[in-house]
């Protein structure tokens, strides 16, 4: 028997098929990373000894159930919150051991002693809406970032937020990261984020 000639399969449409698949994956791909406000919850077991905190070192922010903002028992608009928080944190009214040599605030003895002592206490009601809460959180974090940026610019000539981004970026080489790490820690020590989220009042 004569050997039958097998015809070659036409591969011309292969490109079309591949294109079709390509377009499918192109459409379904979402190269997105989530972003948000990082927070740390307090541990559930209470600290061993009660730490006495001076009233003047606490900055109380209450978000009521009508989504109104009460800052140090006074009604305030959200847009003024950032400035008020910065004024409080940067006050540096302490003397002696508590003195703050990098603060540029008013040094009001009735306000916070030192950024390392100052605590922002954020309270909310069970009926507060989440978006208001996030807006308030955002403003408070912004206040911290503003001060950290200022201090970082003074010490290292680069904003803190930029440093932090560089440090977290996996593309940054390891040597650079090792260099950034002590700087970031130093700035964080100067302005520690002491933002306490108390349990809500239920009424």
């Amino acid at each position, binding site marked *: 028997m004569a050997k039958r000639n097998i015809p070659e399969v036409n591969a011309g449409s292969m490109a079309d098929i591949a294109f079709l698949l390509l377009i499918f*994956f192109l459409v*379904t791909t979402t190269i997105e990373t*989530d*972003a*948000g406000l*990082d*927070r*740390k919850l307090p541990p559930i077991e209470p600290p061993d000894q009660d730490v006495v905190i001076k009233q003047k070192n606490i900055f109380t922010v209450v978000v009521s159930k009508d989504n109104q903002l009460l800052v140090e028992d006074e009604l305030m608009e959200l847009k003024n919150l950032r400035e008020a928080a910065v004024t409080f944190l940067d006050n540096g009214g302490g003397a002696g051991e508590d003195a703050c040599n990098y603060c540029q605030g008013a040094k009001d003895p009735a306000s916070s002693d030192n950024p390392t002592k100052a605590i922002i206490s954020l309270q909310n009601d069970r009926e507060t809406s*989440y978006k208001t809460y996030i*807006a308030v959180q955002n403003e408070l974090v912004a206040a911290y970032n503003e001060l950290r940026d200022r201090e970082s610019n003074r010490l290292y000539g680069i904003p803190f937020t930029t440093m932090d981004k560089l440090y977290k970026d996996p593309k940054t080489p390891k040597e650079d990261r090792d260099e950034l790490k002590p700087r970031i820690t130093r700035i964080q020590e100067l302005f520690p984020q002491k933002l306490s989220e108390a349990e809500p009042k239920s009424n």
Partner: protein
Amino acid sequence: MAKFNKKKSGELPPVSTASLPDIVFMLLFFFMTVTVMKDSSLLVQNELPFADQIQKLDKKNRIIYIYAGKPSERYQSTYGTASKIQLNDKLVDVDAVAPYILQERSNKPQDIQDLLTTALKVDSETNMGLISDIKQELRKVNALKINYTTKAGDAFRNLQ
């Protein structure tokens, strides 16, 4: 002389498209590898609030997601309109959060078990009561690193 003039026929040969499939396949494989299919479909409304002081959530394997919000319209007849928590593909009550976190944590490799972040993807129209309950549950299982996942944008847009 004629010998040298032979090739000057004037017409350009057509460009070979034989390597086109290879190029397309290369692209295809790239997109196939980077594609992440959504692993859980949303049962709750999830319109995230805006914030601009945000940090990126890298390293997807270190994140545990918790969704919360009102059930989507098609599930409201079954689950009602009160805000609910969604874990994986189920709508649950608050007391299921702690066991879920423990279970998810034990599924992760040992060396990253202490580095997990809990991403709270909560609808902006939720009351803080539910979120406080979730936070209490998270504190019980010592999952203290949380992230309020938001959209990038001016925080004042939340108030409109």
